[in-house]
């Protein structure tokens, strides 16, 4: 009984401490509400689940773009969210949660690549798992993309060096600003612009046969 009362008291205290976060900060729903982040910081598992629901897909896809192996990407995404949970208290600006998560994801992927090199394993596979498209995979709207083009883009992405691939993925697929990408990668905006431009030129060269103006 005493335990129950203590638990209720603790919960109330937590609500009082964390409840203020609701409605205090305003932002678009495209980022997760800061109130949710504040609740997650206070140990609210449901709130952290909301964060996972919102960012699981982009984080996993980003990592997959970096490592080209779905199974490994899933492991690293899991590690990313576990680390995020562990260090959530250190997140200073709740409004920049996604930038912070991408930064962790990038570090996790980089550590994995480093470890793989140590183990003499090849992370950047010659034939990425992602290129072996399953026949059962769902084909969304095929207005512009066919399987061949998808594979070509995959190969072109793999051919980019790490810095170019990261900035290309964050800018083009995840629509991050230079400022955010700089926060994620630690690179200067000048370097990011140069890398992105070069990445685009390389991609363009490979895609040229597929695109023609009507």
């Amino acid at each position, binding site marked *: 009984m005493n335990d129950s009362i203590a638990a209720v008291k603790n919960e109330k205290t937590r609500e009082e401490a964390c409840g203020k976060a609701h409605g205090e900060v305003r932002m678009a729903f495209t980022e997760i509400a800061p109130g949710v982040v504040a609740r997650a910081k206070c140990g609210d598992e449901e709130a952290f689940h*909301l964060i996972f629901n919102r960012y699981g897909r982009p984080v996993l896809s980003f990592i997959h773009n970096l490592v080209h192996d779905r199974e490994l990407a899933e492991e690293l995404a899991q590690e990313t969210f576990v680390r995020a949970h562990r260090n959530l208290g250190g997140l200073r600006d709740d409004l920049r949660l996604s930038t912070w998560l991408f930064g962790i994801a990038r570090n996790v992927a980089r550590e994995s690549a480093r470890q793989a090199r140590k183990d003499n394993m090849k992370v950047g596979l010659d034939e990425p798992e992602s290129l072996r498209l399953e026949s059962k995979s769902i*084909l*969304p709207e095929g207005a512009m993309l066919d399987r*061949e083009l998808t594979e070509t883009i995959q190969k072109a992405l793999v051919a980019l060096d790490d810095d170019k691939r990261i900035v290309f993925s964050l800018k*083009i*697929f995840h629509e991050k600003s230079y400022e955010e990408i700089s926060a994620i990668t630690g690179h200067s905006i000048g370097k990011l612009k140069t890398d992105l431009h070069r990445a685009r030129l390389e991609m363009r060269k490979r*895609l040229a046969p597929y695109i023609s103006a009507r």
Partner: protein
Amino acid sequence: MNCERCKKELEDFLYGELGESRDAAIRAHLGDCASCAALRDQIERENEIFTQFYERTSIEPAAEMWEAIRARINAESGAPARSETGAGWAGWAGWAGWLDRLRAGALGRLLAPATLRQAAFAALLVALSVTATTIFLKRGENGGKKTGFVSQVSPTTTPQQGVTPSPAPSNDIAGGGKQTIVPPSQSGGPGVKPPAPPRQLTEQELMNRQIARAEREYQKAVGMLDQVIAKRRDRLDPEVIKQYESSLALIDDSIAASRRSMQERPGDPTAGQFLLAAYARKLDLMQDMAMR
């Protein structure tokens, strides 16, 4: 502004990374210079292709991933890991359970008549695709006969609940784009193989494309409603926001689960119906939130 300068800043212009004055200068130059305007069009085409590539290849985390994360974070904090999703997530039983919780839960409390013009417009965005897709899915369920689908709305077709009946969409499934994708074999040049005859799409592929189109329309509407809600957020009761977010998470879970089911059972048209139903509920919820 000259062409050299414009070309240097064009990408940043399209990313929205320029300040107002540079933005205006580029815009003015593009109005006068066909060469730079052509480059802009090319970059826009590429971006559209990359966007579609991302939509196609991005990965939805499996439910098991959350379970694994939860187990690890609970282990770190010393709390026991309770299973919320259980074995039901593996199939439709779990999916239906989420929907039931949704209907009976916070979503029900939040539903109210929708009048906001923007929200209504957002809903209209999806009507066309969803109606056509629903028809198509019904055809699939009934063992719809053959390929070469021409999406004409039958007068006997029942539109999805909450969706305004709309005229038949174009039969050009690939229509609407500004460019053509030409396989290398058809693009000319030395050593060119003769163009392969266009492959007739299977019923399954057509169905998946229709679903994907409807899903994209839903996502557009969701994006619009996001903006509307963001503007009104500071006027909303924090408790309502909390319930809204919980409901949204449930729906997103449902959407993710139905996507997985579609992948596991690609020939089952019911999976697509569930997916679109979940989106319809998300839109309902967001419309309600947007008009508060």
